[in-house]
């Protein structure tokens, strides 16, 4: 009995040492074993998500069947307005290009969409805001590519395997994005603060009392960022706390993207 327990203890010590070595060498790196497992799990993910969408879709259809007609007429009106807006924007775009040529200014670089992807899973722990998308190296993705959806910036790729990738959202405590204030174009650093407030919030670092910032102001990605393309909407300032004893203000930003309801995203090429 004593010997058996001793043997178990030795097993535990050996496994612990092996795991600690493994942890230190595999930090945020795609590895062979994970890749193999993900080849097996991805079809299972697809199956469950398919069932999920089917049930959710059917349920939504039943719930919304009464409002379909009013929704349709509202959308038709909105579509007319958007068509007009689109026409005007195209006019402005042409005008902008011509004026840039006239002034000999460099054309703004556009960052092409690599692929659209679907969110298939999220981190089950509370301390990280990371999720899995169903596209990987095989679809042309690589590390640090930028992930957005139609509301704005979602995050960046932190691990790319063959068939899936892991996205770290901007609300994760490890995330830092170089941004600018929309009105004054002042550079700010946006950091994730998922341990504050209600978990889906970011904060701005180093905002002094003389920074021109107001509640409700839009935050965009800046042009000095090494990863993120310029001008992607990130969020809105929701709270500014001024401490009378210090020059630094605490500024909280609510991301435009609702991470809890995130299903489809776009992956952009980074700089």
């Amino acid at each position: 009995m004593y010997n058996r327990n001793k043997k178990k203890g030795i097993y535990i010590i050996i496994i612990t040492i092996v795991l600690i070595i493994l942890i230190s060498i595999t930090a945020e790196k795609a590895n062979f074993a994970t890749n193999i497992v993900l080849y097996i799990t991805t079809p299972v993910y697809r199956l469950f998500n398919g069932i999920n969408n089917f049930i959710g879709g059917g349920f939504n259809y039943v719930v919304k069947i009464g409002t379909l007609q009013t929704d349709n007429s509202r959308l038709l009106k909105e579509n007319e307005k958007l068509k007009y807006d689109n026409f005007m924007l195209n006019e402005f775009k042409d005008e902008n290009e011509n004026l840039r040529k006239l002034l000999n200014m460099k054309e703004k670089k556009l960052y092409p969409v690599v692929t659209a992807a679907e969110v298939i899973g999220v981190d089950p722990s509370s301390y990280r805001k990371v999720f899995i998308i169903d596209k990987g190296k095989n679809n042309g993705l690589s590390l640090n590519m930028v992930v957005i959806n139609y509301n704005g910036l979602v995050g960046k790729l932190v691990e790319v395997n063959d068939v899936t990738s892991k996205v770290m959202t901007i609300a994760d405590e490890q995330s830092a994005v170089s941004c600018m204030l929309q009105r004054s174009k002042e550079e700010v650093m946006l950091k994730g603060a998922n341990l504050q407030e209600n978990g889906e919030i970011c904060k701005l670092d180093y905002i002094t009392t003389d920074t021109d910032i107001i509640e409700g102001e839009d935050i965009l990605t800046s042009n000095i960022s090494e990863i993120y393309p310029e001008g992607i909407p990130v969020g809105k300032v929701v709270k500014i706390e001024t401490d009378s004893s210090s020059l630094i203000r605490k500024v909280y930003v609510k991301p435009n993207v609702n991470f809890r309801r995130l299903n489809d995203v776009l992956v952009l090429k980074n700089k």
Partner: protein
Amino acid sequence: MNDAFKIVIAIFLYAIINTIYVRYFDIMGIKPNINAIIIVLIGLNMGMTKGMWYGLYLGFLVDMLIGTNLGLNALIYMYIGYISGALAKKMYNENIFISAVAIMLADIFYSVVIYFTYYLPKDYGFLKYAIRLLLPEAVYTLGIYLTIYALMGLFRKRTSF
């Protein structure tokens, strides 16, 4: 099919389902640690050795599916499984109180290890971490366990008639 193989397949499917559906349980950024519930129950009911190996297996799966470092969850859940197995040897007699306390302690152990690996290097205060994440998560996890326990009790009553 033998029992061990069935459990391996069940844990595999559970790990995937957990990452898909856990976001619907998110309250103010806090998610319940259902992995801890599963491993503590395996440890308490099947003993130290099985608790340890299944903990290691589930931890590896979580690391591969969503973790950043391969082995961190594996290490934590291996210890959770082993210690709950050891606890069962000493005092477990299908008592809800013991399993509830074990699950809460397992979740707190998980959060403390995470604090030391992720938040301590960033000078994040432990008290702030405990109030914002560690304690709410432990209470939430316990609540989920007690709910499942109560539902299982109801189900058992229904089927026994």
